[in-house]
Every structure is written in structure tokens, then in C-alpha cells.
């Protein structure tokens, strides 16, 4: 009997198998980058001697259990939040050492003195929907961002980016340390001009 060499195994289908695996991984991969609204909670310890804040420096936003919005004692729509908050923050009604030289608001004496003193107070009910709460938060952050963008562009007209872009560039790990060093003071100046003072009261129980 003639000796026969073993036939070579056909490897033509290897590609098909590899393709199957490849397609599986392609489909299941979610290169997800999470993003969201960054906030900071107040520390737990009670302030023994809370500073006295004048009513005109507080911008109250209340969201009730039916997701209705009460801004400064008036029923408003969510689409109004941003413009009202900007108007309040940028008012600059103070005089003397409280005056604000970069504010472009109406200088209404019955609204906030300057952005450093202006506090936004957000109050919600336990029955408020999270979606609406996030929408309000988003609009309040948008108000700050809009003002900060304006000032950043005014102070750094050559940079070619606004505050939000500069900030995300600063946070990006791929940005070189030299550029970060350059961005940091520019960002801090604008942050100090419009500090985010957003206070959240503990929700009503009912």
C-alpha cells in the first residue's frame, strides 16, 4: 500500500472565524466617556455663626412636587431660568466697595450687589422629578458659563476659545504642562469674577 502524506488542513475558514469574533467585539464595544454636571456638596459640620445675607443678594429658585418653578416668588417656566439668573448675577447694583466694574447688568438697587455676593438658592421637594431638577441645574450652570465665557473672551481675546473650551482643555490630560500653567491663572481670574455660589437647601418633607 502506497504511503500517503496527510492532507493539509484547509485554513481558508480561519478568516471567517476571526471575522465573527471581530464583529462580536465591534458590536459590544462601547467606548464610553461619561460626562455630567460637576457639583460640590457642602461639608456636614454646621456653621455656628452663619453670615447674614441680605435678601436682595439671594435668588431663590423653588421646584415643587408638580415640577413647577417658582423664581423669586413668581411662577416661571424653565426656559426663563437662564436669562433671569444672568440678569441677577450680572446686575452689579452695589456702590462703593461693593461695586462691580465688569458687570453689564441693569444696576438695579433691589437686585444683587455684585457677582461675588450673589447667591442662587435652589430648593426642591422630595417629589420633584430628577429630570426637571437636572434641567434647572443645567440652566443655572449655563448662566454662570455664559457670563464666564463673556469675561474670558474679553480678557483673553487672542486665545480663540471661550471659558468652557479653555476649562476642558485644562482638564484634558493630553494638554502639555506648559499650556496648563498658562491657562490656570486665566481661568482662575474668571472663576473669581463669577464664583459659582449655588446653595441647595435640604428638601421639604411632606
Amino acid at each position: 500500500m502506497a504511503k500517503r502524506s496527510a492532507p493539509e488542513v484547509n485554513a481558508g475558514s480561519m478568516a471567517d472565524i476571526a471575522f465573527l469574533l471581530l464583529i462580536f467585539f465591534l458590536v459590544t464595544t462601547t467606548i464610553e466617556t461619561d460626562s455630567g454636571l460637576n457639583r460640590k456638596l457642602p461639608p456636614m459640620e454646621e456653621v455656628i455663626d452663619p453670615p447674614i445675607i441680605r435678601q436682595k443678594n439671594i435668588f431663590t429658585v423653588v421646584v415643587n412636587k408638580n415640577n413647577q418653578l417658582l423664581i423669586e416668588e413668581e411662577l416661571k417656566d424653565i426656559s426663563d431660568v437662564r436669562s433671569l439668573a444672568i440678569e441677577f448675577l450680572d446686575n452689579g447694583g452695589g456702590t462703593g466697595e461693593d461695586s462691580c466694574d465688569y458687570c453689564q447688568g441693569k444696576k438695579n438697587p433691589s437686585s444683587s450687589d455684585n457677582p461675588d455676593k450673589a447667591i442662587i438658592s435652589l430648593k426642591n421637594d422630595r417629589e420633584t422629578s430628577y429630570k426637571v431638577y437636572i434641567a434647572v441645574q443645567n440652566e443655572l450652570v449655563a448662566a454662570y458659563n455664559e457670563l464666564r465665557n463673556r469675561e474670558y473672551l474679553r480678557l483673553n481675546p487672542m486665545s480663540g476659545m471661550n471659558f468652557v473650551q479653555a476649562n476642558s482643555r485644562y482638564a484634558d490630560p493630553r494638554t502639555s504642562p506648559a499650556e496648563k500653567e498658562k491657562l490656570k491663572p486665566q481661568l482662575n481670574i474668571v472663576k473669581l469674577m463669577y464664583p459659582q455660589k449655588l446653595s441647595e437647601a435640604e428638601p421639604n418633607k411632606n
Partner: protein
Amino acid sequence: MSKFKKKKGGDLPAISTASLPDIVFMLLFFFMVATVMRDSTLMVNNSLPAADQVQKLDKKDRVMYIYAGKPSSRYEDKYGSTARIQLNDKFAVVEEVGAFVLAERAAKRQELQNVLTTALKVDGDTKMGLVSDIKQELRKVNALKLNYTTRIGDYTQNIN
């Protein structure tokens, strides 16, 4: 004419596909390495609300995740349909959040322990009561950096 006659009248030799598997395997390995598998399976509904003033979350090793929402349909008959918190792979009550944060913090490297962010992945239809309770618990353990994880989109999508 015979000069131009093809020698055997045969076709072009077939292009060898022997290296095709190698190329595909290369791609395969790339995707296998780049894939980040979700470390915990979601047991709650998690359609995040939309926002457009978002900032990117920190690197993954500096973030701990807290999920909340209604139990998904698979778990509905067992756990009911009120919104619950999910920590790692199991449902939890509000009081467990503090212990979870401390455990997560202890598991991180020393230099990261102070820069941790808590990402709240909360379903849009949840009531704020639960979220406030979580926030209170976080304050108790001094985990003050918070991120409300959202989808990127216009806020009007949240109102219906």
C-alpha cells in the same frame, strides 16, 4: 501570434489570502484590548436625563458609581417598582451608601483617596427624595465631589 499567446491559457494565479486571518486577528486584538467591559450589570432602569453644560468625568480610577432608579423588568416582581439604589452588583438601602463609599475609598491608592468623585447615575424619572438622601449620606462620609452623570442633549428633552 504565438508570441502573445498565454502560456497555458490559464487564469491569473489566485491572490493568496493566507495573510487575511493575520490582519483580521490584528483588528480583533485591538478591539479586545480597547473594549472596556461594564464592571457591574445594571439592575435598574437607567435612562439618564439630558444636559448640555457638561464636563467630562475624571479618569476611571478616580470615580465611584452609584446607580439609582426603578428596578428593571427582570427584577420587578422581586423588588417592586419603587426606585432603589444599586451599589456594585446588588440593591442597597440608603444607609449602605456611606459604608460603600468608605470601602471604595479604602480600596483606592493612597494618592487618589482625596480626589475621588462620586458619579450619580440616576434614572430621570426618579424622585428627588432618593437623590437627596444619597447626597446626605455622601456628606456624612465627606465625599463631597459629585457628578450628576447625564446624556448630552438639550434640557428641553427632560420636560414632557
